[in-house]
């Protein structure tokens, strides 16, 4: 079982996320067309290109710098709402990891928590508003709780992904309160939140399941 992570494993995760975003382009577009402006699939591909570029050429060993480099590249390439939130999440996780060439398992929930908090503050959303946060926050909490309870990393990661899916499904019947989908009012009820859909794709790929 892995107990430490280096920059190479972080770039491998970025590459996995990029592949998953490309593979889910159509699905994400359809989710966004139902409640928004329909550009989420385009954003996903641009984001994938940015992550692949950083993963392919970055030689920094400092994991914080690597994540921040990815955040800046994502903002340049994909400045739409979801792209910008992703950029902020990467920058915030990067700040936490700055100066570290190795991450311990115990560091991982801190990074995820920082990413969720940046989505909360920058996106001005709360849990229950039906945004990406409703997948991210429970995922971060489940991950931290499982590790704290002494579960192995693989089990904690599986619990994290399951919590993200549950969070997405729990808010699906609700009315969106923040972002483009909120303008639909009651017509957003019963539709999957595209931000949650995006978060589930990304988290699943980070775990590599």
């Amino acid at each position, binding site marked *: 079982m892995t107990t430490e992570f280096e920059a190479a494993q972080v770039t491998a995760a970025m590459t996995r996320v990029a592949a998953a975003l490309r593979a889910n382009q159509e699905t994400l*577009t359809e989710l966004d*067309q*139902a*409640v*928004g*402006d*329909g*550009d989420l*699939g*385009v*954003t996903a591909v641009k984001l994938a290109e940015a992550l692949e570029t950083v993963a392919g050429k970055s030689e920094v060993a400092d994991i914080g710098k690597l994540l921040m480099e990815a955040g800046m590249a994502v*903002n*340049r390439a*994909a*400045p*739409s*709402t*979801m*792209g*910008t*939130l992703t950029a*902020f999440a990467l920058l915030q996780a990067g700040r936490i990891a700055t100066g570290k060439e190795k991450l311990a398992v115990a560091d991982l929930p801190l990074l995820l928590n920082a990413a969720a908090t940046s989505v909360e503050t*920058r*996106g*001005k959303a709360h849990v229950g508003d039906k945004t990406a946060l409703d997948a991210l926050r429970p995922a971060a909490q489940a991950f931290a709780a499982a590790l704290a309870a002494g579960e192995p990393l693989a089990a904690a990661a599986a619990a994290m992904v399951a919590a993200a899916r549950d969070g997405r499904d729990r808010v699906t019947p609700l009315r969106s309160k*923040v*972002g*483009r989908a*909120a*303008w*639909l*009012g009651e*017509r957003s009820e019963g539709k999957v939140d595209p931000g949650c859909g995006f978060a589930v794709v990304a988290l699943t790929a980070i775990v590599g399941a």
Partner: protein
Amino acid sequence: MKKLINRPEDFVSEMLDGLVKAHPDQLAFAGEPAAIVRADAPAQGKVALATGGGSGHLPVFLGYVGRGLLDGCAVGDVFSSPSSETMLNVTRRIHGGKGVVYIYGNYSGDVMNFDMASEMASMEDIEVRTVLVRDDVASAPAAEAARRRGVAGMAFAFKAAGAKADAGGSLDEVVAAAERALANLRTMGVALSPCTVPRVGKPTFSIGEGEMEIGMGIHGEPGAKREPLATADEVATRMAEAVLTDLGARAGDRVAVMVNGLGATPAEELYILYRRVHALLVERRISVHRAYVGEFATSMEMAGASLTVLRLDDELTRLLDAPARSPFFCRA
């Protein structure tokens, strides 16, 4: 998808290239292809105004870069925010020493990126103020007006703020002029057909031959309701009543009226709508200072229209009547 384009991914860059080549006396790039500024920028000693947002809405946003209007615009991909870096590049190029005002629509991606650009500009000692446009009454109830999105009414805010800046207004005065216009205007729209984001290749939504979408935004976001298509008079009445009620317009008010086409609706239909809006205003003893009928904020090839009413006082009348010129908007 049936569009006169080359590669879908070149849609925005080729549009911008053509635009700057067509109007070299008025527009220029500020160091990168997505940053468009007045050809004579920076205007020294004048408060500078910037906007920004996704492409696909011409004349919004960059069509209001010009004399008596805005100084620069950060241009995003279709329906997508520009990056904070592009916004910062625009800000640097237009700053004439008296500060910069950002005026743009209330969309989360744009807000986050403009906020980041504003933080970066302040580190370079450029004072930046922000005015958000939230004029679409269909996007949230009056009690939650702060959640509303910005649509065609932003053109009036650009005009008012631009005129104030041109007249030598201070940063506070220019912000106040924009906010005064926005406090006195409301918009509502309907759509009859969808639009297609070039890189997506298929329409954002589908709508039956006999249907219309009430409260449609300018990105093809679904509106608040789907209903059977009504006559021009019925649609005009519906939009006018919603807008005038939300505005609290009363007999004796003087207004400017904008009937805006969303891209595929001909001017003929817009004038048919205007005819009914005008009659309704006369009935309510509201006088029309000036009517704007045409395309001011579009959604590419979407069919449909929006109505904006701006309630005027002496100050707003002066600002609206002041000279202005851009490739898309002229007030001699």
